[in-house]
């Protein structure tokens, strides 16, 4: 396996493509956990978004419509999770798990029905490769040959961070996961904040799903997300619930993923499976405290009861 400059630029470009869906999902993940709701169902929301995106692009030929469909699919599941966890105060893990199972079964069903021939070739996200720029050695393939959704994947975390730390709404979001009753007595609606957080995570997960199938992979197959939604949970921890750091963590995970594919292709001595395991191992290490102290929003996972002060 030769480690040349072109290998590195190729690997970086692939890392970014692999990380982009995760980064999109992570933005929603940061917001939802900051509001105190654990959304383990982002995997299912991402999967639903992926199928919706493929279907949207396949049947209308428009990536814009596909994106809307994807976000809608994620959003609908997000509303379900929000209703169960906020209004009904159900156990958040169970709700998320059930949504994942539901999404798996439903997407399998719909995929078989919509695409009996299995082929899903459709219009993908357009690549932003301006003349002149994309020929630059190293920077060209890495930065100036990426699709538009990847640019969004980089801009969104920045926008999310600005909103979170510079606006009153962002302040409220930061407060409600830590001490919902304080927010309530300040005259704000805890329910509304949590609902928006969960639905936002659904929208972002759907968006991430569309990035996955219409940019990184280019096709859909049953269970195409293969646990990416769970990796994002890891990124939230490693990124300490900050939109930018969580996105950076996603970049690292994308890098590991791109690396293992290349290792496979080169038939190296290290079995590729161990490289694939890397993000998961890293997460456990992060949680076990090897990557600094991780203190999340205080009430994540706890149902909010307005009557019990």
């Amino acid at each position, binding site marked *: 396996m030769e480690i040349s400059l072109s290998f590195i630029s190729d690997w970086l470009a692939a890392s970014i493509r692999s990380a982009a869906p995760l980064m999109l999902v992570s933005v929603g993940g940061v917001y939802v956990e900051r509001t105190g709701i654990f959304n383990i169902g982002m995997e299912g929301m991402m999967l639903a978004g992926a199928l919706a995106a493929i279907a949207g692009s396949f049947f209308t030929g428009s990536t814009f419509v596909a994106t809307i469909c994807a976000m809608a699919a994620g959003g609908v599941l997000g509303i379900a999770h929000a209703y169960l966890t906020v209004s009904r105060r159900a*156990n958040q*893990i169970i709700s998320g798990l059930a949504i994942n*199972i539901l999404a798996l*079964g439903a997407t399998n069903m719909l995929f078989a029905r919509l695409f009996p021939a299995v082929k899903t070739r459709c219009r993908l996200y357009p690549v932003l490769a301006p003349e002149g720029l994309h020929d630059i050695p190293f920077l060209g393939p890495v930065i100036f040959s990426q699709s538009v959704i990847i640019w969004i994947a980089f801009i969104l975390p920045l926008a999310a961070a600005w909103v979170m730390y510079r606006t009153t709404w962002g302040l409220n979001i930061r407060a409600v996961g830590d001490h919902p009753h304080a927010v309530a007595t300040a005259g704000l609606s805890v329910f509304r904040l949590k609902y928006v957080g969960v639905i936002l995570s659904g929208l972002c997960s759907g968006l991430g799903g569309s990035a996955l199938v219409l940019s990184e992979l280019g096709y859909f197959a049953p269970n195409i997300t293969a646990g990416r939604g769970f990796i994002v949970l890891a990124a939230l921890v490693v990124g300490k619930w900050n939109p930018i750091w969580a996105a950076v963590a996603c970049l690292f995970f994308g890098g590991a993923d791109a690396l293992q594919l290349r290792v496979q292709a080169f038939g190296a001595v290290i079995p590729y499976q161990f490289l*694939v395991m890397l993000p*998961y191992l890293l997460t*456990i290490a992060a949680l076990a405290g090897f990557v600094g102290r991780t203190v999340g929003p205080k009430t994540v996972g706890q149902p909010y009861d307005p009557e019990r002060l």
Partner: protein
Amino acid sequence: MNRNETNSLWLPGLGAIVLSGARPLFAIALALLASAGMIWASGVNPFTAYAALAQGAFGNIASLANTCVRATPLLLGGIGVAVGLKAGLLNVGVEGQIYAGGAAATAVGIIALPVSPWLHLVLAVLAGFLGGGLWATIPAYLRAYRGISEIVVTLMMNYIGLYFISWLVEFPGILAEEGAVFPQSPLVLKSAQLPILIRGTSLHTGLILGVGLAVFFFLLLRFSPFGFRTRMVGGNPEAAQYAGISVKRQILIVILVAGGMGGLAGTGEVLGLKLRLFDAFSGGVGYEAIAVALLANGNPLGVIFSALFFGALKAGANKMQIVTGIEASMAIVVLALAVLFVIAIGFGERKLGAIRKAKERNQTEREAQAYGD
């Protein structure tokens, strides 16, 4: 964590199932209703679809056997989750434990050990249990001694397990079969295979093992000091500590046991059904086992029925697809909807309980705690 209403000593065994059965049964009914709606929207008569489903699940001996075979890993894994729930823990790592247990059982099963066939089988099964338990050690330790949520860690271990098995059966080494077309292990030796219960079917003794363990754990939880400790930790870990119980040790043991049960689920699949270790042979059964345990409200005996129900759904779904064209994945959709309905209803029940409780209290004394004053 889900506070189980039936933690008390006094409820007779059946009563516990009945009391905890009402809510899930209602949820299942709702789920079936919702699915019927989806079936009807696809232009198929729901009755035809469900009739085909029932046929495929119970129609003849072969169907029944099919149902039970599919139920077995759900039962074994579900018991582990149920035991964990009693201790206030949610073992989401069943999938990984299935892989680990399956691998360990295979490792013992493909070697010609100089022992009697029965012993070989026992050793293989034991290896499977230990394999699953081993897979749960890291999450168990992190949860028990560092207080790190077992949920995310076991989730990660699932994927590590998946890829670990993938490596085991692909690269020449201990478990990969030489010259095989697909990555797989060599065949498990006859002496280590789980005996078939009904000739001509694939129904293996794993089911008996599952039912037996379900009963065992139910009795253990209700009648043994270990069970009392477990339920105490699940009910109120601070009070348990105050009562002198080593909460950390209890959590560790329970997660290890739950992991072992997950390992047995994988063992059953490998030693009884597939007779080989395949790449990604679980296919999500681990997560389904969690849903099964939740539907049973964490009661080991209830898991038997819950697992059979879902086994029936899966067995019948294929027939339903053949007859009506409704995809077999509908079965998974029904299961997921059932769980979602269970937790949606759950809140209503808790509120009723709170009202009843407050009324009783008012008869004896005014209580300030719950409502400020």
